[in-house]
Each structure stands twice: as structure tokens, then as C-alpha cells.
């Protein structure tokens, strides 16, 4: 009897269970890789993170920010009114892994970039209750005290390049980036000058208020300030993105 053969052969049963439960996942996920409208056309507005922003993102992940903050504004009226335009797939196309999250203990951060000043971000990360008395967010005082380790930035960018993020190593890749993003942005994405790019952005923008020192705060604030700011939604009519679903 076949029933008995399967139930008494754990190796075979394991294999068959894997086949059955993967059908649902395959049907839902695989088509997204070849359906044209999966990622919206935003005319190259979304670029990969600069080296400094990338380090900030790594710190965001290291500190577990994603456990309490999502980065995904859903197309609902209340979210639209509170956070702004719903998130696009295009906006996280270079995120590996994406930070959409599924739990909001704190507010969504998908469009937090530019909403507050750098100084507010620094103070809020240091001591959240000094600006938002009812906040339950922990203090992150070490960000401002720890020098940013950027020695391995080349390795981090190369790893992402391997997953398909258009950071450039060769001249051909650089030229392609110039064509897609323009020269100024292509320079930011060039792995060969990654360290200089990182140092320049940290010094020019003074994210943590102290140009003399480059701290983890610089990187994290640089990352937070770019979130959700790349697509200029005034360029598109309201129905444009609905056509991609």
C-alpha cells in the first residue's frame, strides 16, 4: 500500500513534504521575476546607497531598528495621511535584504528622510525622551561616541554588487552608471573611490554636528535622511503607479 510506504519512509516523506509546501511559494514568488510591472518605472530616480549611507544601513540592521520600525507605507488612506505616498517596489530595489518589516512598535520610517533636521535625529537617537516625552525607544548613546569603521567598505559594496546592485568596478560599469544616474551619482557608486566618497560626504554634511570626527551617528543619520526621498512624486500623475498593479 502506497500510503504505508510513504509513512514508513521518512526520507521520502520529507522530500514529498518539501515539494508540496514549496508549490505555494513558487507560484507566488517566481512570476515576480519575469512580470514586467513588478518594479515601477521611476526613470532611474532610485539609486543605490552611497558608501556612507550604506554603512548607516548596516548599523540600522546591527542595532535591530527593523524590529520596531517598518519601512513600508501601505496604500491605505490612514497611512497616506500620516506618512505620505505609499512605498514603491522600485524604492527598495537595491535593498539586500529589504527593511520592509512587519511590526510597528515605532512609526514607519520609509519616508523619514528630510522630515527632521540632522540635529533632531542626533538628539533623538541619543536620548529619545528629550524630544518625545512619551517615547519608549531605547537610548543609543554609543553611536555618537564610536568612530565609524569604514575600512571594509569596499568589501561590503562588492558583496552587494555581486547580488546585482549597480556599484561599479570596471570602466564599463562606471560608464553605464553615468548613463543611468548621471556623473555626480556615478562617482558616488564607484567602488574604487569608495573610502574617499564616504569621508567627503561625512565631512561636507556634518550629520552628527562634529566635522572633526566621523562617527557611527554620521552614517546612521545619513541613511535616515535619504529614506524615501529619491522619487519625486510631483513628477507623476496620481494614477501612474496604480497601472503597475
Amino acid at each position: 500500500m502506497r500510503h504505508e510506504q510513504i509513512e514508513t519512509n521518512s526520507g521520502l516523506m520529507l522530500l514529498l513534504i518539501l515539494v508540496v509546501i514549496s508549490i505555494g511559494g513558487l507560484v507566488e514568488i517566481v512570476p515576480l521575476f519575469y512580470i514586467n510591472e513588478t518594479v515601477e518605472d521611476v526613470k532611474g530616480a532610485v539609486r543605490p546607497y552611497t558608501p556612507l549611507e550604506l554603512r548607516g544601513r548596516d548599523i540600522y540592521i546591527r542595532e535591530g531598528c527593523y524590529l520596531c520600525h517598518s519601512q513600508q507605507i501601505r496604500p491605505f488612506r490612514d497611512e497616506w495621511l500620516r506618512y505620505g505616498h505609499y512605498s514603491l517596489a522600485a524604492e527598495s530595489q537595491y535593498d539586500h535584504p529589504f527593511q520592509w518589516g512587519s511590526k510597528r512598535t515605532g512609526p514607519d520610517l520609509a519616508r523619514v528622510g528630510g522630515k527632521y533636521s540632522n540635529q533632531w535625529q542626533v538628539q533623538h537617537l541619543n536620548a529619545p525622551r528629550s524630544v518625545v516625552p512619551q517615547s519608549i525607544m531605547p537610548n543609543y548613546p554609543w553611536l555618537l561616541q564610536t568612530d565609524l569603521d569604514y575600512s571594509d567598505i569596499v568589501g561590503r559594496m562588492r558583496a552587494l554588487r555581486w547580488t546585482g546592485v549597480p556599484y561599479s568596478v570596471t570602466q564599463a560599469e562606471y560608464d553605464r552608471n553615468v548613463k543611468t544616474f548621471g556623473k555626480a551619482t556615478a562617482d558616488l557608486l564607484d567602488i574604487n573611490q569608495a573610502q574617499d566618497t564616504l569621508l567627503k560626504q561625512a565631512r561636507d554634511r556634518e550629520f552628527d554636528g562634529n566635522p572633526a570626527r566621523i562617527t557611527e551617528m554620521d552614517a546612521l543619520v545619513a541613511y535616515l535622511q535619504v529614506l524615501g526621498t529619491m522619487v519625486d512624486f510631483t513628477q507623476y500623475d496620481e494614477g501612474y503607479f496604480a497601472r503597475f498593479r
Partner: protein
Amino acid sequence: MSDNMQHPQQKTGAVQTTGHSWDGDLQEYTNPLPRWWLWCFYGTVIFSILYWFVYPSWPMGKGWLKGYGTVDYTITDKASGKLLEKKDQPWNTRALLLEDLGQAANDPKRKEMLAKVQAATPEQIVKDPQIMEFVRSVGKGLFGDNCAACHGQGGQGVVGLYPNLTDNDWLWGGSTDKIQETLVLGRKGFMPAFGAVLKPDQLDDVAEYVLTLSSEAKPSEASERGKAIFQGQIGGCYYCHGADGKGIASVGSANLTDKIWAIVNVPAQKTLQDKKAQIAGFVAKGVNNTRIMPAWQNRLSPTDIKLLAVYVHQLSGGK
């Protein structure tokens, strides 16, 4: 398993077993499923097939089965407000949101009032009690989402960091128009650092003079020396703060003659010496890149900004 939990039909042999037996005597019944359960199950199967045809479902080649369900939404030209198209969009949550926002069927009052806010000037809104009631209720939510993180839930601000919006003292002007301008473009506070220009005792003298402006200190020899620096070329403080020290809204300089302190927390210091030290220390450092009000023009709609400007204006009683 105790005897009383055994199936009542077991003894009669009416229920069949699956035919397996484990460990010699373990067997498994094949009781039929309850009818009501079975019909619910068939019902869900039929429901799912109907669902495929109404909502987006199966992937098909480069696209997918979009379903026969549609959403009506209108697209209006942003600049002119002219209706461009109205169409049946295959059902999806983004179109559904547009329909919701466009028709606002669940909130016609809100839409009507927003249209009134859009049409009126801030001065007209302030004079209309009905619109003001709306501004207070909606403005509270907008303020909480966008402004409260810095300025506090009630607009009280944080001394030294974020201006108090309730005290009717305005760095950049307190008319509704000026507040609207501040919201649209943002502001960047700036004061040069005098630490390299003035010697410590000169800083001290300037601090003493500044305190006399708001009657925190009595005029003295030191304050006279400070006055010469403040009003003269060496300090040049009057460029921005005005010869009378009342501040100039177009450059966002503080009024030094009132008892309201936006940056240096003078009221918290007990002795004159401490007050002077606080001010001298601040004048030495100045303000650069630390007092920045973000621009909201790309984040909020013009109507929302106007509404917020009126809301902030009324927080302080209005100037």
C-alpha cells in the same frame, strides 16, 4: 485512553479502520467527516474559484489574470484641477486608495471643509469660526504627525533647541503668511561664532549688555563696554539684532529685549554670573547647521501647509 472515551460504535464494529496497524494493535478509524464541515469545505473551494475571476490571481506569461473587478478613480491635472480621465482600473489596492482619496465617500464633510481651506486666504480662515473649528481638529493631527517631534505635542518646544510656538515671540515672523513661508521653504538659523573675534572679557561685557536689554542686569561700566562692542564695528551685533536689540524677522534674529529666551536658557540660571557665562559661551560658539527647520513643500500639500500655518498661528493666540 480510558474506557469511557472509546468510540461508542467501536464495540459494534460499525466503523471501519484504515487497515494499518502499528505496534501490533494500534489502528486508525475512518470516521466520515461531519456533513456541515464537509459542505463548508466545498463552499470555500467554490468561493476561491469565484475569487480568481473577481480579483487579480494567477500569473500568465509576462502579466497576470487581472480579474473582472474594477475600481473607478479620477485623475485630475494637478496644476489646473481639471478632470483628465476617469476610468475602470482592474481591481488593485493602489487604485482603491485613489478612489478613496478622490471621492472621500466616507468623509464628505472633510472634503468640503478642505475645499474651503483651499479657497480661503489665511486671514479669511482666521475670521471664520466654522473653518477654524475644522482647522483645530485636523491641524492637531497634522501637527502631531509632522511638527510635534521637535516642537512638542502642544507646541511648547525645547529651550535651546526648538522654538516655543505658543509664546507669540517669533524668530521669523508670526503672521500666517510668514509661518506659511517658514513651513514651505524651511529655515536655517545662523549666527557667527565670536570666539575668535572677541576676547573672553569682551564676550563677558557683551553678555552683560545683552542682559541689560531685557532688564536682567542693571547698566554698569561693563555693560557700557559691551554696548560699544554690540553697537560698534568690532562686534556688529546690531547688523542682525537691530540697534534696539529687538531682532529682525527677515534674518531670523532673536529679540533680546523680552524675557523669552529661545536658545540660551537664562531663566534657569540663578546668579547673574551664571547667566552671563551662558550667554558669553553661546556668543563664542554661534549657531551653524544646528538650528534647521526642514522644508515641507515636497511632503505636505499646499492646503495642508496653509491649514498648519493657521493652526500654529492660533497656538499662540495669533499675532
